[in-house]
């Protein structure tokens, strides 16, 4: 063979082998789809997965584009776990829980923007809390290329899915799925319209040594959060404005995390910042209401009849009724949250924040915190010891 023919053979082998291997891996991963990144209404969704859901922003952004819900839940894992999609409060409207594990406010806002682009939103229910109220990338799997920006999302998305399919981790996990060794603990959140399967949490808590052992790590994680930050408040303002333009109603609610988490903020010197943040949220909601938007802010956190439930260390029971652990509330609490915001009426759990009542409310919370210290010495000591 002459030199040109030798080099032609060289190039053909290079290109052929590269295309063959990359194409095979992409086809395998696209077909098996171990992380369910492009599934909606398919039998794949009934497959049991490991307790830790990987690439859930990929699956949820895709599902949102296909399902096009009218009611969207946004926020972090607290909302993802606690807010039920099976509820009569929204009638026949399609409901999807778009909250993401580990999400910061920036992540949640990106998800809301995505949902507003791919569907006509009627209502957005957005769970927030001070520590995660920042623009940090909280969920590291949430590549912003997944956020829809135009009407060609599904086309662009198929290219992204193809690109993601050419990867080592997905290929290894596809093989594990085919061999039956991938793990089968719980359903994907996509099978439950975005709501996290409680069995996944149970598995995680068991791996930590049970509810009792999970209490303090969660309190510490909560107190360690970098929020609230000014840029996150600006982002929330912008997103609320965008939702108003789309005619959607917005319900912000401060997550009903356990009283020990609120107490941890106090002992970490973050109480004042938290109160200032509540005031800013109140002003934000009122400003948008004055501009004709249906935006309201509710606080379910702090010290109330639900959040002060005794943990196993103080109450003796192995598990809590309202909480998985101090950071994540159960769906019975989520039902109460939704009922308070959409079912009408007022109760001891959940307060709508307005300028008129904020000062008295915050004063009441400070008094409740002091009472909590007296009446719950075990929990207080646990938090103080960190």
């Amino acid at each position, binding site marked *: 063979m002459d*030199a*040109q023919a*030798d*080099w*032609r*053979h*060289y*190039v053909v*082998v*290079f*290109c052929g*082998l*590269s295309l063959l*291997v*990359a194409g095979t*891996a992409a086809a395998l991963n696209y077909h098996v789809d171990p992380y369910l990144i492009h599934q909606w209404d398919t039998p794949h969704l009934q497959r049991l997965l490991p307790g830790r859901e990987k690439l859930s922003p990929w699956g949820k952004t895709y599902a949102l584009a296909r399902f096009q819900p009218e009611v969207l839940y946004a926020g972090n894992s607290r909302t993802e776990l606690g807010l039920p999609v099976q509820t009569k409060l929204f009638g026949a409207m399609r409901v999807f829980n778009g909250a993401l594990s580990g999400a910061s406010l920036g992540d949640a806002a990106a998800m809301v923007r995505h949902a507003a682009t791919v569907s006509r939103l009627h209502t957005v229910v957005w769970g927030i809390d001070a520590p995660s109220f920042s623009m940090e990338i909280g969920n590291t799997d949430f590549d912003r290329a997944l956020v829809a920006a135009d009407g060609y999302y599904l086309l662009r998305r198929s290219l992204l899915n193809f*690109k*993601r399919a*050419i*990867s*080592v981790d997905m*290929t290894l996990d596809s093989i594990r799925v085919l061999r039956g060794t991938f793990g089968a603990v719980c359903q994907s959140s996509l099978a439950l319209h975005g709501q996290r399967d409680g069995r996944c949490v149970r598995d995680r808590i068991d791996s930590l040594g049970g509810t009792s052992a999970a209490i303090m790590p969660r309190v510490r994680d909560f107190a360690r959060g970098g929020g609230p930050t000014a840029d996150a408040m600006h982002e929330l303002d912008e997103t609320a404005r965008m939702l108003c333009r789309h005619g959607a109603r917005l319900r912000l609610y401060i997550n009903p995390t356990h009283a020990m988490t609120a107490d941890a903020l106090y002992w970490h010197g973050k109480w004042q910042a938290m109160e200032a943040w509540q005031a800013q949220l109140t002003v934000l909601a009122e400003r948008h209401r004055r501009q004709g938007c249906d935006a309201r802010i509710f606080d379910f956190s702090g010290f109330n009849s639900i959040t002060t439930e005794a943990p196993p260390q103080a109450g003796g029971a192995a598990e809590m009724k309202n909480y998985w652990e101090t950071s994540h509330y159960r769906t019975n609490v989520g039902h109460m949250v939704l009922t308070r915001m959409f079912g009408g009426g007022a109760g001891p759990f959940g307060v709508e924040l307005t300028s008129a009542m904020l000062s008295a409310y915050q004063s009441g919370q400070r008094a409740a915190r002091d009472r909590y210290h007296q009446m719950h010495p075990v929990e207080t000591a646990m938090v103080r010891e960190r």
Partner: protein
Amino acid sequence: MLFNSFSFLFLYLPIVLAGYFVLLRWRPAWIAAWLALASLFFYGYWDTRYLPLLMGSILFNYWCAQHQRLLTLGVMANLALLGYYKYADFLVPGQDWDILLPVGISFFTFTQIAYLVDRHRGDREKYGLAQYTLFVSYFPHLIAGPVLHHKEMMPQFSRPARFNMEDIGIGLSIFVIGLAKKVLLADPISVLIAPVFTPHAQPQLIEAWIGTLAYTMQLYFDFSGYSDMAIGLSRLFGVRLPLNFNSPYKAANISEFWRRWHMTLSRFLRDYLYVPLGGNRHGALNRYRNLMLTMLLGGLWHGAGWPFVAWGALHGAYLVLHHGWQAVARSSRPRWWGRCLTLLAVMLAWVLFRAPDLATAGEVLQGLAGGNGVSLPRGLVRWAGELDGLGWHPAFDGIRWIDFSGPAVPALMLAITLALCAPNTQELFGLRLRWTPATWRSALMALTFLCCLFNMNRVSEFLYFQF
């Protein structure tokens, strides 16, 4: 669009190559215009706001080059442009300049200054606008070099293009080597660096040395990887770019280092700064002054900040010391001694180059000297008795800033071995070894490419884009 992105590899490059091959067959005269158009698109894809700036710069310089009396004005205008975008905040601090640095401005400005200076020196060669536009904007080099010289590039753009399968094979292979340097070495190593160079991190001895060594290797594999990719890409179009690296960490002295590191910039600084300043023509003292000035400005070229100035000054001092030493010392040292000393000197200087400010650089240098203490991994506490016996009493508080669990440390070990012992890309592909089109070599390249491809889900920018 990054060379190490899917959109470049599977969309942009195939389209540009397909257009090139079609024109090669039917309209070879249009190839320069096609590549120029593709290059402008490539630049505009980064940020369309600066596409008019690039095009304006090209047209202005082309116009100046046609008129002998405008050449000085052209050089001044280029320097003013660079000064405004790159140095305004440094030269006039305190103003709210809010200037976004246009990508590649240092490279396309220097390329054109060299052209104007050569025209001013009497170079009579004139080029067509399409060829000139391609020369300045040629996408393989536009963002981070190599710094091209018109005399070696324009003849290639002007001559009739021809199809050569060897160019395709060699080009693909060099590109893959560059991609592997970036994706498989520089990127995994990067996690070892940021924590050590964070302000107030106060790295202790081991952390400081690993962090500094990691940056030394990351910068080399990142930048030489980019240069290899540029050279490989260009070879696909039958155009040979100048070499930019020649195993710099094998240099036996600091002068040799600068003949091996970022060779096209060194050449530019020598020809258009050091020599015009007087070079080594007017005695030793003037030579040392010229060396210092050249390296100071070379440091400033990399960025508007005191750490870069200090880095340039340090290298200037190294060069002066080296030449001074050569003048007085007659005995020759073994080559390995010079290599170790040079690498050490270069590493210390990289601390200034990487640190966000001089205070942080001071902290890291202090750590390298043991000034922030010595702490060993907790697991080694069982050897405390033996170490005490040796008269050494380190702490066993663990390593805070270095993650030993991931692939970073093994990648660093491999990088060190390759940088110090392995042949470099140009040696592999012709200068020393002959890269023949054997099937196993092709398969090896394909597998290397696949390894890169399967690890490209988190695309990272090249370090030299910021310059």
